């Protein structure tokens, strides 16, 4: 039932027969040129992004990581299932890699697909320390393609990570340049009426929340494989070929909406795991997620890969073309996203007095107890904002009903939803969870504090799980921001209502005002990180340590052997 366990066992019993790959990575100071600006950053083997690491399912890898920085570093293998002391999180998996030292990671590759790696030390990842991982499967894949490209996105900012964090702490809207203006007040007033607009502004002002709080960090240049929009990374193809694009979002903070004008995309993998194919015109990729899509361009023409940030403050762009130098039109950015009251609905203790003030308009506010309730199915009639904005009709069960963040395809076609993701070949048998753990995602934008259940990592006790249990995590997003929650070391089985066909992921996006469930088969001993993958939210405290207690002796032995081999720094 779990072939990778067998593989692991085999690799223990017959080490001589197992494929073994040795890889070297150096961690270096590098120059990053986005076309808009040049900055100092951190990279691997002299470049940012680092190399694409190509592994084979079933091999044992040894990766020698040499730290050429003058500070500690680490590499986390994002999405890989491995012994916890190889997971690369300083303070949780291991102490970290000191300047000048070489640390050897060693672990069996027990999966296939598209993943990535990045530093888990300080803000080295936003500063450029990331790269892609492609694992070739042992078995034939359930889809075919003639050519493949990694398409790795990031949101490169001219400021260093440390400076961004400090600026956000000093002035939380430091980077927000999509705030509502006097001009927007008048255009809203002419659209929705003056009194409605005043009431709307007063309701938000009363909460001290901004409709424009979609992207904390603006002013970045979107990069694809290290190239800015002007530098235009280009993937070549022969017309008629099927191309597999391995999209990875390695951004510090930015969600991207991705489309390729003129091409249908067939989503075949999410977070490295095969899903039942879905044809889409556009999809949203959360921070740290990956999606593999197949496109089939038949014409001798260039196609633009356009990745617009969720808040529409920036974009990344690349090209698929039959010949180098060909390019296609680059679309305009759409209007900035605006949150609605529905996105605020997860916020507890919202003063009903404030809400009463909003009751006079033409919207139906009859379910005001839904305000503190988290279930978005009760949110009917709360979509004042979207009604006022005059653009209803779109819905996605993974967004609050009437949310201002519900994505729509630029061409009016199909936009991928989490609800469309169904596992191709379930890894785990479906069973009842043994218990539920509620994790409220909490924060305060005006203080730029982020936490889980109101407690920051610095003050938090670890989450303790027992080996062998199946835990149902209930995420309740009480903030107005989207949080990509990433559990290390074990799969997150996202509840899309498809039972045994629920997809397995490593990163689960939780939209404002929604509750999302995922289940985890607790099948890896050790201790693991569990956090929001927005770099500055994690650093501000939206982070936990998970301890898995117990575990079979055999797994234990494996862990200990590798721990000895891997050695300390």
């Amino acid at each position, binding site marked *: 039932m779990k072939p990778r366990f067998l593989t692991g066992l085999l690799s223990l019993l017959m080490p001589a027969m197992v494929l073994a790959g040795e890889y070297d990575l150096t961690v270096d100071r590098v120059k990053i040129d986005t076309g808009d600006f040049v900055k100092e950053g951190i990279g691997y083997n002299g470049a940012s992004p680092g190399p694409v690491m190509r592994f084979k399912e079933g091999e044992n890898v040894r990766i020698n990581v040499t730290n050429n920085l003058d500070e500690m570093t680490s590499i986390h293998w994002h999405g890989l299932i491995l012994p*916890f*002391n190889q997971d690369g999180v*300083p*303070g*949780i998996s*291991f*102490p*970290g890699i000191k300047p000048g030292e070489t640390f050897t990671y060693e672990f069996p590759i027990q999966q296939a697909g598209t993943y990535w790696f990045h530093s888990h*030390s*300080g803000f080295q990842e936003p500063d450029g320390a990331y790269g892609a991982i492609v694992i070739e499967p042992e078995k034939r894949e359930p889809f075919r393609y003639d050519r493949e490209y990694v398409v790795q996105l990031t949101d490169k900012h001219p400021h260093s990570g440390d400076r961004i*964090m*400090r*600026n956000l*702490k*000093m*002035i939380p809207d*430091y*980077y927000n*340049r*999509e*705030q*509502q*203006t*006097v*001009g927007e007040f008048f255009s809203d007033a002419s659209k929705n009426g003056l009194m409605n607009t005043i009431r709307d502004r*007063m309701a938000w*002002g*009363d909460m*001290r929340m901004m409709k424009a709080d979609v992207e904390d960090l603006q*002013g970045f240049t979107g990069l694809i494989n290290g190239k800015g929009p002007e530098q235009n990374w280009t993937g070549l193809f022969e017309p008629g070929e099927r191309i597999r694009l391995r999209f990875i979002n390695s951004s510090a903070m930015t969600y991207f909406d991705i489309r390729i004008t003129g091409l249908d995309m067939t989503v075949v993998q999410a977070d490295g795991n095969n899903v039942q194919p879905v044809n889409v015109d556009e999809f949203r990729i959360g921070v740290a997620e990956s999606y593999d899509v197949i496109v089939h361009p038949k014409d001798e023409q260039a196609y633009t890969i356009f990745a617009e940030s969720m808040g529409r403050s920036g974009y990344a762009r690349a090209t698929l073309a039959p010949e180098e130098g060909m390019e296609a039109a680059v679309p305009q950015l759409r209007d900035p996203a605006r949150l609605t009251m529905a996105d605020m609905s997860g916020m507890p203790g919202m003063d009903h007095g404030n809400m009463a003030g909003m009751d006079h308009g033409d919207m139906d506010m009859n379910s005001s107890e839904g305000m503190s309730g988290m279930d978005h199915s009760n949110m009917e009639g709360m979509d004042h904002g979207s009604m006022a904005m005059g653009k209803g009709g779109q819905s996605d069960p993974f967004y609050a009903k009437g949310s201002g963040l519900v994505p729509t395809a630029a061409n009016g076609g199909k936009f991928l939803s989490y609800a469309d993701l169904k596992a191709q070949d379930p890894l785990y048998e479906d069973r009842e969870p043994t218990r539920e753990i509620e994790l409220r995602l909490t924060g*305060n934008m*005006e*203080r730029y*504090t982020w936490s889980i259940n109101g407690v*920051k*990592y*610095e003050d938090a006790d*670890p989450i*303790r799980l027992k080996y062998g249990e199946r835990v149902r995590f209930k995420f309740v997003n009480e903030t107005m921001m989207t949080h990509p929650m990433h559990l290390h070391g074990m799969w997150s089985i996202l509840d899309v209502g498809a039972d045994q066909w629920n997809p397995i992921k490593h990163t689960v996006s939780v939209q404002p005002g929604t509750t999302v469930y995922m289940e985890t088969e607790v099948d890896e*001993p*050790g*201790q693991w990180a569990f956090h929001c993958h927005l770099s500055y939210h994690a*650093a*501000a*405290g939206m*982070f936990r*340590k998970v*301890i898995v*207690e*117990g*575990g*079979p*002796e055999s797994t*234990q032995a494996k*862990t*200990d052997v590798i*721990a*000895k081999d891997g*050695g*300390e720094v």
Partner: protein
Amino acid sequence: MSCIRSIVAVSFLASIGVSTAVTAQEMISDTTARKQPLTTWGVQFEEFEYRYSDDDEELGVWNADAFYGTDDFKVRLLTTGEYEIEEQAYETLENQLVGQIPISKFFDAKAGVRFDTPEGPDRTYAVLGVAGLAPQWFEIDANLYVSKDGDTSAELDAEYELLFTNYWILAATLDASVAFSEDEEIGVGKGLVSTETGLRLSYDLIDRAFSPYVGVVHERKYGDSADLAEADGGGTEDWFAVIGARIAF
């Protein structure tokens, strides 16, 4: 390697039947910066400007603060001064050093000391205040002062920003001070002492780090304080044209 131990021991214990009571020890404890409170700092000049009054008075004025600390506790230095350029003298010079802790979602409490060392008599006060964001986006800073001689006074600062665009910002400010007892030596009468209202139109030239502005400022003294100023041969009301920059780093 010593840090990776105890799970074997735990599973052994579990196997002899005390499983539910057992809690595994942490394998390594997180001593990285992530597990420490995030310490930050910042310096902001809300006002850094040249003022030219309707009586041809010229002033160099600043109003700034610097902080260092965590979410739970910050040390903040607040400094404000008005330097009379012609007379080469400080009309006002106030420095406050306060400790600051959060008391509600949007407000902090502050306590500390304030030293006034302008031209003329000096004063030292104890400070107790609250600062934060009020509904409808008013930035509020309210303080109570008690001088060494027991004179008490209060000051309220409020600021509101209107965004013409995301770069052109009009900031309206109001500072009002009230004295609960007279301190004649420094020209303070009982009651409403003075107000300063300002309107400044700024442009964010470099991020939010450097935002030049122009504006107008109106200063007025009231009641006994106005009488004291007049008796001293001074005015009770001034209009200023100002040019300066908001600075943050």
